[in-house]
């Protein structure tokens, strides 16, 4: 049989993600169906990272919705030459979550609503812990020094600013900035991130 071969490989470009990038280009042209697919791919990671930072499920849902709508709204601004589509989307998601944390702590509402760490245990259960990606991240985090690891986790997963991280860890501001940077560089190399 000489049926045409479909050569649109999922991994035709090792550093790029033809699918998600191409879908975002379609979304930028107003394609709602393409957006449904983008939603299918990004809703879990977006909700996951927002929830990690905010903890509160209702608030996380609200912010994740805003982020996904923002992806629809600003799809035309995604530039595949500047990074992966997932990194673009998750940057928006994390920043939105952190903005929410900072706004809330400014008005001290967050302290009142602060969820106990019990919620955290639940989060862990919901996270797809079996994924290889998870294991890889954990293994690479373990390869860092304790100061690097704690600085990165407090900053990224808890949404703290580096001065707050410095205060929590009892180290100088400059030290935290440096440890976050060299820790992330080590993570990047450990995870063999390409960009």
């Amino acid at each position, binding site marked *: 049989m000489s049926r045409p071969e479909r050569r649109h490989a999922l991994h035709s470009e090792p550093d790029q993600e033809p699918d998600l990038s191409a879908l975002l*280009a379609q979304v930028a042209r107003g394609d709602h169906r393409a957006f449904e697919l983008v*939603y299918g791919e990004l*809703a879990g*990671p977006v909700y996951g990272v927002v929830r990690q930072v905010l903890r509160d499920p209702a608030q996380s849902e609200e912010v994740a*919705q805003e982020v996904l709508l923002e992806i629809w709204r600003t799809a035309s601004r995604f530039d595949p030459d500047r990074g*992966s589509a997932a990194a673009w989307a998750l940057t928006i998601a*994390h920043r939105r979550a952190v903005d929410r944390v900072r706004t809330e702590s400014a008005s001290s509402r967050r302290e009142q609503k602060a969820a106990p760490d019990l919620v955290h245990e639940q989060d862990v259960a919901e996270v797809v812990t079996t994924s290889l*990606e998870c294991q890889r991240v954990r293994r690479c985090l373990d390869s860092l020094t304790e100061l690097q690891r704690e600085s990165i986790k407090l900053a990224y997963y808890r949404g703290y600013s580096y001065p707050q991280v410095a205060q929590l860890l009892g180290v100088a501001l400059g030290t935290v900035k440096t440890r976050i940077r060299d820790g992330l560089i080590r993570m990047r190399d450990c995870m063999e991130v390409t960009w």
Partner: protein
Amino acid sequence: MRDDLHVLTGSYVLDAISDGEREEFERHLQACLSCDAEVRGLRETAARLALARTVAPPARMEQRVLAATYQTRQLPPVAGDHLRTARERRRVQAERVFAPRPAYWPPRPASWPRRLAVAAAAASVAAAVSLGVAQLSTQHQLDTVRASGAEIARVVTAPDAHVATARTGARGSVTVVTSAALRESVVSATGMAALAAGRVYQVWVMSPAGARSAGLLTGTQLLASAVAPGDRIGITVEPAGGTTRPTTTPVAVLST
């Protein structure tokens, strides 16, 4: 390059700096090529940290977001960026080149985007793939499972058996019966197009971590084991003998 600013690359991608510092740093980025390159790499790294925390969102979220897109005007592209435009043109051309012939690749059933979205019990494999996670995928694992009739019957008759059926991009249809308790799925195909010599249908268990081969679909049925909640079953066309990870777009993706 100002060292005091350069050291902020990490804190910048983790959103751990103040708004004022962010503005200053972003101005600096425009002029500092090495900072910009570093920021890109660290941003991809931070995305991995996020991906490792993937959580299935509440199902109701999807309809709300999709409905909201119909009431939200999109931003126009940044005008005058002809590089982007040229690139965009190339991509559109590429899409046309790769566009399948209608006879071979019928329009997707309307249900499949929905299924994809609803099955977002975690991130889809595409999100994982987009981060290059496929490289981390399990090693050569082409243990074609020769499931006995009894094993298949056990899954199909399990009290919690869940059935999903879809037409495939290669004609015919695929049915996946999954028992979450047994962590096994039976994949059955009927009427799928015969392949050219040297090509096979390969079945994948797709998780946020990537796709793991469940074997080659040599007969009409195949048993996939170690199926986790939220995993999906995908079928691709691969070279004879199979591959370690999918190299073509799946002809079918089903929830388990």
